[in-house]
């Protein structure tokens, strides 16, 4: 198994370097300094900014610096927009808020989605299945923004206005619920206040898509021969669904989860903007709007790393659930 994991990682190293080269070149097609400073900037100002980023040096050297930053995960360059702040600092403070949204949202939507789809497949063609599938289509037809606005209004603003002091959800804002360093600690209450509502919205939004997809997977599995064998052995229906079928259905489920990862990240950008959560999504949007070249360059590298890591994780999980993958 370890050999398998190491092999997968080694395969993906050249892929990642390739992505970095592309990102590196794409960001230099137009001069980032002009982009940032605009036409009125003086030559001296331009030269100074260019020198401070090392953009006056030959491309291979620049790439070497970029690579070193990525490999050591030490982004020393300063943000252009947030003067005096290192890019690494921005990254560090925004990563936890982002993961506080995406990880619970992804886990919950997958678990709930698979569970609902099993129920639908169990009652295939009958009332519970029909009702769930109609609900799924309905859920899919409504825009993400509607969920956010309605959620904020009815589940945060209205109860707060009504003077329910104990009401846990805030309309907007963020306080770190995991504090590092001295005097730090974990404050789950803060997570509930600031992250739970956006997580719930994110889960509800993906529910329609997830259940429809997983139901199709489950229905396909119900027709397999091994299911008949299990019935003929005297297995109970829950055993068949939650043991026999579920483990076979894990491959498409994993594929699905990993392929929705980009959308979860993009989706959480919206959530971060609307709920005022200082996550990576909000940072990168701010950076793009302000043409904050050092931040963009670093964040894109980190996003790419997350995606490649998820691809590797997908392959490893395949091997865990399906013995046939391990051999090939």
């Amino acid at each position, binding site marked *: 198994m370890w050999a398998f994991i190491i092999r997968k990682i080694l395969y993906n190293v050249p892929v990642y370097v390739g992505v970095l080269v592309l990102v590196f070149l794409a960001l230099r097609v137009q001069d980032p300094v002009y982009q940032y400073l605009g036409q009125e900037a003086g030559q001296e100002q331009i030269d100074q900014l260019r020198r401070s980023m090392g953009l006056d040096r030959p491309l291979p050297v620049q790439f070497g610096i970029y690579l070193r930053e990525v490999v050591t995960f030490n982004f020393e360059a300063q943000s252009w927009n947030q003067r005096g702040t290192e890019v690494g600092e921005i990254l560090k403070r925004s990563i936890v808020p982002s993961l506080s949204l995406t990880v619970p949202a992804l886990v919950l939507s997958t678990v709930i989605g698979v569970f609902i789809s099993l129920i639908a497949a169990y009652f295939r063609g009958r009332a519970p299945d029909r009702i769930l599938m109609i609900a799924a289509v309905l859920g899919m037809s409504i825009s993400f923004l509607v969920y956010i606005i309605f959620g904020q209004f009815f589940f945060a603003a209205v109860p707060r206005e009504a003077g329910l002091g104990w009401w846990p959800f805030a309309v907007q804002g963020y306080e770190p619920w995991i504090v590092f360093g001295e005097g730090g600690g974990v404050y789950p209450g803060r997570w509930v206040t600031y992250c739970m509502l956006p997580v719930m919205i994110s889960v509800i939004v993906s529910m329609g898509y997830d259940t429809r997809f997983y139901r199709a997977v489950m229905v396909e599995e119900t027709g397999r*021969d091994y299911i008949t*064998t299990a019935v*003929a*052995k005297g297995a109970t229906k829950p055993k068949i669904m939650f043991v*026999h079928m579920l483990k076979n259905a894990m491959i498409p489920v994993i594929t699905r989860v990993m392929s929705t990862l980009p959308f979860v990240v993009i989706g959480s950008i919206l959530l971060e903007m609307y709920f005022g959560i200082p996550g990576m999504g909000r940072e990168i949007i701010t950076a793009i709007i302000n043409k904050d070249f050092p931040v963009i360059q670093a964040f894109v590298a980190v996003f790419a790393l997350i995606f490649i890591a998820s691809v590797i994780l997908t392959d490893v999980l395949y091997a865990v659930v399906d013995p046939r993958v391990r051999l090939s």
Partner: protein
Amino acid sequence: MGQRSEQNRANRTGAEGPVLSVRRLTTRFRTDRGIVTAVDDVSFDVAPGETLGIVGESGCGKTVTSKSIMRLLPDHVASYGDESEVIYRGNNLLRASESEMRKVRGDGIAMIFQEPMTSLNPVFTVGWQLNEALKYHTKLRARERRARIIEMLKLVDMPNPEKRIDEYPHQLSGGMRQRVMIAIALCCEPDVLIADEPTTALDVTIQAQILDLMNELKSRLNTAIILITHDLGVVAQVCDRVQVMYAGRVIESASAREVFHNPRHPYTRGLLDSIPKQGGKQKGARLPAIGGIVPSLWELPPGCRFQERCRYKQQKCVDVEPDLVTDPDGHARRCHFPLGTSAKLTVGASS
């Protein structure tokens, strides 16, 4: 197992009635084109240690018969006739609750399927899949179950069972997978084993091995076997009695010897003639085949269902559907004009 198996052994020593009785089994399917009767008024008994062959071409209802016994057909499409009964241990399985059925499945009646390549769950080990059946039907502890699994794998001639127990189905060949299926089916010592085309997907040498194995296990465990097949060669090798089905109905039923040497239904005759015989025919001669195709179950002709393909068709065959008539010698056939001489029949009756 414990108590029940004691009881079994006691039962098996005494010569007593059938272990499984199928009475007037009629299975209907709801389809988009309306209701179709896949199995029509089928009755038979199997005694302990006996092998009954159910023979017929594709779509004649043999698999549906076997799945009806185990109630493996989906409830929302399949229904059974009001008079239909599958009597096992005094219970009508067709009216049994789902939890009663679970106790019967795998324990009292077990089944082997046609496709060993897909019948095992690909993501669990061989041992896990055997263990599952033992867990449901015995009170053995984990270590005892493992010992029993290895013993079962040895019984089905699985090479290197201590190693194979932890392997996955994709690591086994088709023949070995079918051995695992047989081991699963037999691990709780069922009274009845239903084998639905167990050798169809296997190559000929493996076929012979699997059949030998089933024969041997039958005599060792005194299991009743219902063997479903379209292969008359297989029937000749293992069956005591044979029931030939055509378009959902039983058309001939007799001992295997009788069916092979003295078939009375033209369809059975046709099936036997179409088996290639060594040195039987001149070189280049065409193998005789039964002309025509099986009638669609939606558009069954009035009268005999075989009429359109029958060489001996008379007006009566078009007008009246023949009943399944049991001749004095116990040979049953559904034909107005059975083959074989009437003289033979009288001899059979008087003896």
